[in-house]
């Protein structure tokens, strides 16, 4: 595990070194590695695929311009996430979250995510439930959403999240818990999750 981390870190440093010497393929590799991640992060922050594409493009231009500053104190992944989130915050910070009810487009209510033994109808309903989960996530305040997305969608550890967000681990723990708490309440209210017994 430690050896794999060291190898990944060395690869990060090699990419940056090649970039400093003008090797465009180094940036292309960075782009390929992180395009989907950055796009999905931007999508969760912006809630709109067109905005997410614009944000992704701007983030990578910044990455290209400032990659030479990367000194390897963190992983390249952490650094790129930080660049991406800072940029998303500065662009989206003043926007209000969308004021959408957690119902389907026709106002009909659907329910339940969980059971894996489902037929086609149930799977279709689960698709609607997934959309409701996405909407509930989009309605979270930005600071909770960032923490939940990094943890539950990007599978980052608390210490990595703390580094990306520039806050203490205790704050990360609190934001993740409060974000999940709000999601649980919203999804229960919308009957996407069943009431706990």
């Amino acid at each position, binding site marked *: 595990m430690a050896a794999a981390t060291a190898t990944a870190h060395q690869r990060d440093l090699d990419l940056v070194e090649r970039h400093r010497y*003008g090797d465009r393929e180094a940036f292309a590799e960075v782009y390929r590695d992180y395009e989907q991640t950055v796009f999905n992060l931007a999508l969760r922050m912006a809630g709109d695929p067109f905005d997410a594409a614009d944000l992704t493009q701007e983030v990578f231009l910044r990455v290209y311009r400032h990659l030479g500053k990367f000194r390897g104190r963190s992983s390249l992944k952490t650094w790129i996430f930080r660049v991406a989130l800072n940029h998303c915050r500065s662009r989206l910070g003043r926007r209000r979250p969308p004021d959408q009810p957690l119902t389907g487009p026709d106002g009909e209510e659907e329910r339940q995510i969980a059971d894996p033994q489902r037929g086609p109808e149930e799977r279709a309903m689960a698709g609607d439930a997934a959309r409701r989960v996405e909407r509930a996530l989009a309605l979270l305040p930005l600071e909770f959403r960032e923490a939940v997305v990094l943890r539950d969608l990007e599978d980052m*550890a608390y210490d990595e999240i703390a580094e990306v967000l520039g806050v203490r681990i205790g704050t990360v723990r609190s934001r993740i818990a409060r974000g999940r708490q709000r999601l649980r309440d919203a999804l229960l209210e919308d009957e996407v999750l069943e009431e706990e017994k």
Partner: protein
Amino acid sequence: MERVAHLDDELLSAYLDGELSPQRSESVEAHLASCGGCRARLDGLRRVVLSLSRLERASPPPLLAQRVERRVTLFDRESGFVERLESRLQGLRLDSPLVVTFAVVLALATIVFLFSHGVANRRGDVSLKLATPEAAHGLLDELEGVEIEDRWLQRDGGQWVQEGTAERAAESVAWESERGRAVRRDHPWLDDLLTLSDADAVRFVSDGGEVLLLTRAGDGGPAEPELEEP
């Protein structure tokens, strides 16, 4: 072993993520074994995490990579020598004798260049003259592919003022002077220019006080001007 009273969601959430110490986890498990209420709340959090993990990852638009490539190419082509050099040198050790020597030589060369060209790059100064709408349109053609950096756009020794913050794609270009105003719409390079500038209005001011104003569509931008030849 530490006995936990009732478990709050923060503790349960961290437990769920395996972010507690072994001792703390043990005490949480001991409590859960005897408290149905806390088990139910943990289960609720677990199902939230499960539902989030089932969200599909979206694929980026197919042409996004090309758009980024184009922006990067523009940056390399249009950014100044010093900026490119700075970009490349970022991260190198500044106490290296080679870097120090190079910095001194570069500083001297810059001073010599500024004096020899008589260029005073003061804010608002530009070397371009926008005397007529035709000249403005000529400038529009010239500007193709120019990238605007954070606050200033530099081109051929001139500096142009950039103002505002931005939302979306450009829709029109207005040129104004004491002698009139002209508007052109749908310039293919406008999108690039304003996307890169992060601005909703870009204002180019000549040293004669004439103005070239680039605007975006959307809230807060200047009203769309009408074509009005002088």
